[in-house]
């Protein structure tokens, strides 16, 4: 599904990603952990195609396509979804209208006709239930005045609606209360399937109690310095990241 090879990227001439290798197969859930500033969001941004990152080396293959060659919108249409660490607010644009536009753009890309209003609303209801999303937020402006948790839940709701092949969740669990965390995790679990992969960026082992990952990676100073299973997350929780400094030196 996603193969990242020796990916280097910089911002304003400053190297941020320094050689990332990662392979995510269909149906797998990978977690990425790592200290603040290690490059987790940067990796997500580069995959999604944010303009201010320059890829200096490496390649990314997504489902048979050279991902880095595609525009951000085409990456999304191909099935890359990024749940943002800091979702933006867009005043005046209703959540509903936004989602309808997004969904129909993606459908048009796939050669599918736009959804009729009725079908769209049906889908909306169904996905609202799936991720337990508050229907009152649908007619409000996109994320405007949403609480931190509501924004995060909106990201998961959008993920459910747009049905991507790869969902990248950048700290979606941060800022959620315990109940919301469980609900979001349940949502993701329900969306999990043999055709869908996830990349979870998180600081907390707690999330991985709910969404059991196939692999856990540690990103440190722009490189993946360690890969393991769920147990690695526990170990990190216990020991922190300092002991990995050694590992980094040896890479």
């Amino acid at each position: 599904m996603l193969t990242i090879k020796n990916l280097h990227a910089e911002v304003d001439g400053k190297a941020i990603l320094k050689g990332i290798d990662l392979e995510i197969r269909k149906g797998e859930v990978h977690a990425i952990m790592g200290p603040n500033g290690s490059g987790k969001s940067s990796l997500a941004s580069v995959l999604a195609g944010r303009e201010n990152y320059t890829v200096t080396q490496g390649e990314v293959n997504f489902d048979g396509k050279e991902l880095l060659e595609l525009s951000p919108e085409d990456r999304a249409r191909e099935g890359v979804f990024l749940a943002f660490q800091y979702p933006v607010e867009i005043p005046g644009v209703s959540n509903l209208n936004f989602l309808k536009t997004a969904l129909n753009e993606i459908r048009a890309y796939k050669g599918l006709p736009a959804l009729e209003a009725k079908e769209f609303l049906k889908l909306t209801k169904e996905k609202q239930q799936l991720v337990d999303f508050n229907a009152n937020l649908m007619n409000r402006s996109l994320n405007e005045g949403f609480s931190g948790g509501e924004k995060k839940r909106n990201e998961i709701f959008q993920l459910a609606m747009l049905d991507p092949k790869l969902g990248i969740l950048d700290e979606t669990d941060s800022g959620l209360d315990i109940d919301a965390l469980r609900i979001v995790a349940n949502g993701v679990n329900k969306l999990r399937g043999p055709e869908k992969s996830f990349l979870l960026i998180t600081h907390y082992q707690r999330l991985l109690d709910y969404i059991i990952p196939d692999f856990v990676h540690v990103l440190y100073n722009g490189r993946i310095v360690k890969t393991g299973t769920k147990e690695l997350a526990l170990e990190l929780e216990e020991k922190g990241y300092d002991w990995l400094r050694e590992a980094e030196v040896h890479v």
Partner: protein
Amino acid sequence: MRNSNEIIDDIANKEYEFGFTTDIEMDIAPAGLNEEIIRFISAKKEEPEWLLEWRLKGYQAFKKMQLPSWQHFPMPAIDFQAVSYYAAPKKKKQLASLDEVDPELLATFEKLGIPLNEQKALSGVAVDAVFDSVSVATTFKGKLKEMGVIFCSFGEAVREHPDLVKKYLGSVVPHSDNIFAALNAAVFSDGSFVYIPKGVRCPMELSTYFRINAQNTGQFERTLIIADDNSYVSYLEGCTAPMRDENQLHAAVVELVALDHAEIKYSTVQNWYPGDKDGKGGIYNFVTKRGICKGNSSKISWTQVETGSAITWKYPSVILQGDDAQGEFYSVAVVRNKQIADTGTKIYHLGRNTRSRIISKGISAGQGDNTYRGLVQVGPRAHNARNFTQCDSLLIGNRCGAHTFPYIESRNKSATVEHEATTSKIGEDQIFYLNQRGIDTEKAVALIVNGYAKEVLNQLPMEFAVEAQKLLSITLEGSVG
């Protein structure tokens, strides 16, 4: 991938959709402004003596006036002698009905999306089509007449309803109001006339479509709308012009009169040719629009979507003379490339309990410069007058400008005047967020801009709201990164 500046520069490549010219034989007066030409226009239109005199008074006033200097842009030198003040398609013979309109003209309006054939026309909308200096056709006249509604060209109104015209012409915008209004009084060509009788709710949207076609001419139309007691009318004007390298002057006057309990809703979708990316060519749009709520509990509401013109200079105003009268101004003004807009409103609260509401949404892209200028004046008799003003600016890119000049003059302590203003920018973050959901940048901008302007667009008659939304999207295509 394109960066912001490249995308912003793409605006340059965006063509003006209505820039074609119609090749038709025209009667064009020689360039120049003098008494002779005014007499010529008046004679062409077979006008009565009193109207000629009124025109000449306008001309005398014009000669004494200077171009204004208070606006937020350097006033271009306008050579009033270089303009031809009369241009009309040559009549092949006397035309009695719409079927006899020159097919070339019908085709022109059809191409502009304004079919003049009643069968093809948008049901529920009657249209007066003005081509350069003359009205070429008015649809659904018969149907409206049955209800006593008069909707015709200004010229026809002068002939058929001289008393009404005489009574109200210049009663809201006098012949000496300002230099452009004075010029208009002197040389005004055609325009629309509307009278809604007592107690009638006009059953259709009335609309006038203005088309400048000829070269080196200006358009100086005059519109007069009178809503008698307890009546209602919704009126819309649209306009386009060919792409030409030289600037063309449009100096229109609109007068609205609302009597007791009457309501006039006046909407404009202005899309005159804005000039090219370097600011060459385009229409100079210097327009005086004013309405008076003469009667108690009357209401006048201006809604404007301004996307065209090289320079827009207009301040649709409302005089709230009657008690409990209401005035509204809803505006979206878009500038891009090197366009300039200095626009806003003036509301004069004279009567008691008068209320006004101003919602202005400026959008600036490219190197465009957008100014909101508004005056809210409360007179000593206007007890409990209330005004609310919301004035927002949206910036796209970082080479454009937005300015706000709200003037408040209150002479009554019981009045409440509120003003709120915001400035925001379409952020790269917002665009990227929408991109990440599969929405390309052009659509993303359209979505954001239409969301931003929604409050104003919602005021437009339904038939036109969708068009206006599309127009906004097209206008801003490629203007963001």
